[in-house]
Every structure is written in structure tokens, then in C-alpha cells.
């Protein structure tokens, strides 16, 4: 089942923080996060494996709570370059052969 992302859209000024959530109705073994800028391909940000370890990428970090079956992406002191659509992806099946993606959260950062 497709993970649910919230919010659908976020509007920020440079320097502000944001949190994007990704929830699933089934047990999660890993969560992926990708960012896609308008007219471009999605780009891998990070993957979180079962175990709850928080990962980081520049000023972007994420957590994974397998008990709550959710992950959160934290964008700190946002920059103009953070604008884009963020997707979370979770494993389609226990074999872990493919992902199913959420519908995305659009982040707009202005100066």
C-alpha cells in the first residue's frame, strides 16, 4: 500500500525549518527519501533501515520509527536550493525487491 505523506505542500522563507512525514499502514523495513526539482529526475537523499538510526545529508536529516510505521524528514535552515518535491518510498514486499512511493510533498523556499 502506498505510504501517505503530509503535508502535501509547504511554503517557507529561507532559514526556516520544515518537517515532512511519511506513514505506512504496514510494517516497514526501510524508508527511502528522494528530492525532485521541477523538470528533473528524482535524486536519492537517504535511506533509513530498521533500527531507528537517524541519517543526515547536509542540513537535511531523517528519523525512522518502525513501531509507529513512520518516518520524518527534517529540513533545517532551509535554502533556496531545497525547493522541490520530496518523495518517501517504502518496500513493496518483505523480499525488498522494489519500492512504492508516496504522492510527494512540494516544498517552496523563497528569499
Amino acid at each position, binding site marked *: 500500500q502506498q505510504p501517505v505523506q503530509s503535508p502535501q505542500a509547504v511554503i517557507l522563507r529561507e532559514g526556516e525549518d520544515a518537517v515532512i512525514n511519511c506513514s505506512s499502514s504496514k510494517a516497514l523495513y526501510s524508508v527511502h527519501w528522494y528530492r525532485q526539482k521541477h523538470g528533473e529526475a528524482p535524486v536519492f537523499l537517504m535511506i533509513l533501515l530498521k533500527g531507528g538510526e537517524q541519517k543526515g545529508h547536509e542540513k537535511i536529516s531523517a528519523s525512522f520509527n518502525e513501531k509507529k510505521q513512520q518516518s520524518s524528514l527534517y529540513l533545517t535552515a532551509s535554502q533556496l536550493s531545497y525547493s522541490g518535491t520530496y518523495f518517501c*518510498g517504502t518496500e513493496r514486499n518483505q523480499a525488498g525487491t*522494489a519500492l512504492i512511493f508516496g*504522492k510527494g510533498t512540494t516544498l517552496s523556499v523563497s528569499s
Partner: protein
Amino acid sequence: DAGITQSPRHKVTETGTPVTLRCHQTENHRYMYWYRQDPGHGLRLIHYSYGVKDTDKGEVSDGYSVSRSKTEDFLLTLESATSSQTSVYFCAISASGGRQPQHFGDGTRLSIL
């Protein structure tokens, strides 16, 4: 950057014609995926491959077929294109499935009139 090439990058065709999209990789990755992306739907999996001649269906496989005769090439075929298949198609590769990053090609914009 991962070596993934999609061709063609843009295509306009008519309803009822066959269309084949190609994804070529130079990374020797085992897994290859085809997604379609439409406004409001995110990325939806069409088919994927976990090895040469090994493929499986995704969530939106109706009307599509795939083939993988070599590690580096994964073909997506629309046997008889319909207007509902107008979309942006992305190919992605991964070293080992859902627990490794996916790297995406630049996409193919397909318009079916």
C-alpha cells in the same frame, strides 16, 4: 552520476501505435525499474527486473510489457498506445533492490494523441 540513459527523451505518437522505450545502464546493477509520473500521483511502478529475463509487475502494469535480454538494457513496450498512457516515464536502477538507493534516468516525455 550513475550511468543511465533513456531513449528517446521525447516522443509524440498516435493512439493505437506500438511504442518502445529503452533504458540503458553502465553500472552493472541487478535491478531495473520503470515508473510513470503523472500530476497528483507521484511515481508509480509499472514493471521491474531483478535479473536477465526475470521481471515482475508493478502497480500499474496493464497495457505495458517489458523485456530484459542483457544486464544493461531494459525495454518498456506499449503494445497499442492509448491517450491515458501519456506521461513522463522514468527508469531507475539499484544494486540490490529496496535496501539500496535507486538512481533515476532523465526521463522520457511521451505524448499520445
